[in-house]
């Protein structure tokens, strides 16, 4: 199943991936990352198509995509 992995050490919760995802897969996690952000996470994992649009826009190269 397609999925993304967010490197929580890099994510800064900018939410750009959230709006980039055409399938509204991504949300922000409740927990804090080491640097004090609520990192991005798959809030709606099933919808992911592995299209990589989220990774394209992530300014911190925090997302890797599997398909």
């Amino acid at each position, binding site marked *: *199943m*397609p*999925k993304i992995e967010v490197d929580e*050490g*890099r994510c*800064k*919760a*900018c*939410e*750009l991936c959230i*709006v*980039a995802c055409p399938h509204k897969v991504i949300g922000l996690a409740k927990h804090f990352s080491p640097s004090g*952000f609520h990192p991005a996470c798959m809030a709606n994992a099933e919808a992911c198509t*592995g299209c*990589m*649009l989220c*990774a*394209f*826009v*992530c*300014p*911190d*190269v925090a*997302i*890797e*995509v*599997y*398909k």
Partner: protein
Amino acid sequence: MEKKVFARTKGLTETPMRYCPGCGHGVIHRLVGETLEELDIRERTIGIAPVGCSVFADEYFNCDMIQPAHGRGPAVATGMKRVRPDCIIFSYQGDGDLASIGMAETIHSAARGENITIIFVNNAIYGMTGGQMAPTTLPGMRSTTSPFGRDPKVAGNPIRVCELLSSLKGPVYLERVAVNTPGNVVKAKKAIKKAFQVQVDGLGFSLVEIISQCPTDWAMTPLQSIGRVKDEMIPYYPLGVFKSLEEKK
């Protein structure tokens, strides 16, 4: 098992980037890094970090790096390319760096047709120093030195760098792109790759202007900032190719 279809490029180091959340520099770094990897030029590339937020680029690009004086990237690139024509030289610069203090170096390296590549990040603001007006700040846009909004009567109209350079014979490839949407990111990548390819092929001066966002100094959330790119920046700074070998002016 799933295959990794999108992985971090070896063109970047492992060091996490210290840019603000949502800052455009990060994506642009990735695109350059991927280009270095994909064209297999990483180990013979020397990158030039500007003075600006991306002065830290010297920690992020996984190639030899140099950090010179504010605005002088193209002069440094000239010095390097002339003595190391076998190396790929790129200068990464902000709008203050390239279009304000470094204007003369920009124009003259372009006019000389130096076989170098410039990655020009236009975020319409001086990021590093805390949000002062840039030569590319839009009319009416507030900054810490245009607190009532840029008044073209006093501060002039913003400079369009690609248009400015396009009358010169030296540049062989000039394109303006943006990184506000996935689609634009893909186009930006193509432009960056092409610019490096031009250099690899020894054709001459290439520059890609990338419209970027600075959420912090625009006093916006990252999402608002990409909105401004679409609604205000791109209308003033039309995207497109301004010079290329195919369609010479």
